[in-house]
């Protein structure tokens, strides 16, 4: 049964009857023995893929299966930053598509994802970064993505709490994207899940994939904790565990999995209404609606699946941010956590067909997947529905590593996303 539409009238009606009329936002059915499309991974990217399969292609015989709980992986662990100021054309196309979809996502899903285009600044703290970001601004201008280079005085106006004259790394300017910002990460997953459920799709949680059945080079089924589920097409959208799923299907991916950490401080009064990223010193920060300072840093540099990360990276991140924002030096940190990110050699994602017929992968978003969720889902739905990539996904095939067609974002994207 489709869930009831959320509106101010619904709130008023429920206020008059002790909020007894709200129903669950999505159903939790037992899996059928067969679906047209099975998507592994009920994070943002998996759910968005399902949503656009239904909305753009009318394919609703879809199951999204999830090892843990919905949105409990990197979707619920990131720092919620949204931007599209990338260097290369294919990146700008897919990330800007995502940003445009984010702008109307709350209306499209009838679910408030709290998209907040508060603006985003990437600090230039070395001469190299100044040149690099000016180059990105020029590239963005050609791509039709509005970004600008701002001088330190303007930057200080936008971020009064920043220390421009840092002793080690003075702020020399910044790459400013006024359309960038944040959104509520859980709400993005929940909103897509509700919309998928309303279209009759099945979202099956606590259902780990244990094997993939193929026959004659074609996918037949997935074996899961809840039994065998047959499918015509299978989409693997599992971020950190992509290599493990690919191994079950008998192919390898150019992916390495490393932990990335984030943390939040105790809530304080509003002090910063933009997102600031400092890539030279490895730290980025924004203030949540609750007042917590949301802080992220660099990845660990060795493979791990622990969802914890190294202690010294926290120290490195916080040390860098205290130098840039001296007023946060007395803040207590409330929570710290890690997620396992899937890194590719060129720091760009993979949306691709695979050596197995009917299996498609969407992975390699690395440290910056959240911002891409709607665009990624849009492009992946096109890939799965048509069996070949559309214009957004075309450049992101996994064969680009063999052919040397890298989409090199390791400079533009830096460490932080």
């Amino acid at each position, binding site marked *: 049964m489709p869930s009831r539409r959320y509106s101010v009238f619904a709130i008023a009606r429920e206020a008059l009857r002790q909020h007894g009329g709200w129903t669950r936002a999505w159903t939790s059915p037992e899996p059928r023995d067969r679906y047209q499309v099975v998507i592994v991974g009920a994070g943002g990217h998996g759910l968005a893929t399902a949503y656009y399969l239904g909305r753009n292609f009318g394919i609703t015989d879809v199951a999204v299966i999830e090892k843990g709980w919905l949105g409990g992986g990197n979707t619920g662990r990131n720092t919620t930053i949204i931007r599209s100021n990338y260097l290369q054309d294919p990146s700008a196309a897919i990330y800007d598509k995502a940003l445009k979809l984010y702008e109307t996502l709350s209306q499209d899903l009838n679910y408030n994802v709290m998209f907040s285009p508060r603006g985003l600044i990437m600090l230039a703290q070395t001469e190299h970064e100044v040149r690099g970001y000016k180059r990105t601004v020029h590239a963005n201008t050609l791509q039709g993505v509005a970004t600008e280079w701002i001088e330190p005085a303007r930057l200080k106006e936008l971020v009064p709490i920043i220390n421009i004259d840092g002793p080690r790394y003075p702020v020399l300017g910044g790459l400013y994207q006024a359309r960038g910002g944040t959104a509520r990460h859980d709400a993005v997953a929940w909103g897509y899940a509700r919309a998928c459920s309303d279209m009759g799709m099945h979202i099956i949680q606590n259902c780990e994939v244990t094997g993939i059945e193929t026959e004659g080079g074609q996918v037949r089924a997935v074996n899961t904790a809840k039994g065998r589920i047959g499918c015509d097409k299978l989409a693997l959208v599992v971020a950190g*565990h992509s*290599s*493990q799923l690919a191994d079950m299907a008998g192919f*390898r*991916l*150019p*992916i*390495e*999995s490393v932990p990335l950490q984030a943390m939040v401080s105790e809530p304080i009064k509003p002090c910063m209404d933009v997102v600031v990223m400092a890539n030279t010193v490895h730290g980025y920060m924004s203030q949540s609606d609750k007042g917590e300072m949301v802080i992220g840093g660099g990845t660990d*540099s*060795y*493979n*791990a*699946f*622990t969802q914890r990360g*190294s*202690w*010294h990276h926290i120290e490195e991140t916080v040390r860098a941010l205290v130098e840039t924002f001296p007023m946060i030096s007395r803040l207590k940190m409330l929570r710290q956590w890690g997620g396992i990110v899937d890194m*590719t*050699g060129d720091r760009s994602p993979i949306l691709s067909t695979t050596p197995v017929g009917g299996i498609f992968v969407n992975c390699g978003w690395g440290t910056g997947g959240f911002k891409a969720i709607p665009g990624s889902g849009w492009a992946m739905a096109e890939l799965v529905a048509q069996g070949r990539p559309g214009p957004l996904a075309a450049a992101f095939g996994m064969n680009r*590593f*063999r*052919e040397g067609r890298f989409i090199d974002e390791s400079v533009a994207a830096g460490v932080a996303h």
Partner: protein
Amino acid sequence: MLILFCPYCGVKAEETELAPGGEAHLKRIGPDGTAEEFEAYLFARKNLKGVHFERWRHAYGCGKWFLAARDTHTMQVYGTYKAQTAHATDDIVANARQARPEWVPDWPQASEAVAG
């Protein structure tokens, strides 16, 4: 914090003292290699969730490369050994198999030894 034993210095080193170097025992592909082989050498990694062999450099110590067997899931270190070694030593294999009885080394000699 990850602590590894440097087989050259004979000291325990914290990870801030070390520089990671990725998967160990990769075979370099020569000029006659195919595009697939070269791609595999450059980009395809095992990325295992479990026993993982990897390169480390004792950057703020002796500066030498050594190899470590570490569990990427539990972070347990099964042992470290010198870089001039074709495969992990028998005691490291034994440590790994004690923690993960289902794990089998993927190089031929050791598999036979385990089977025998």
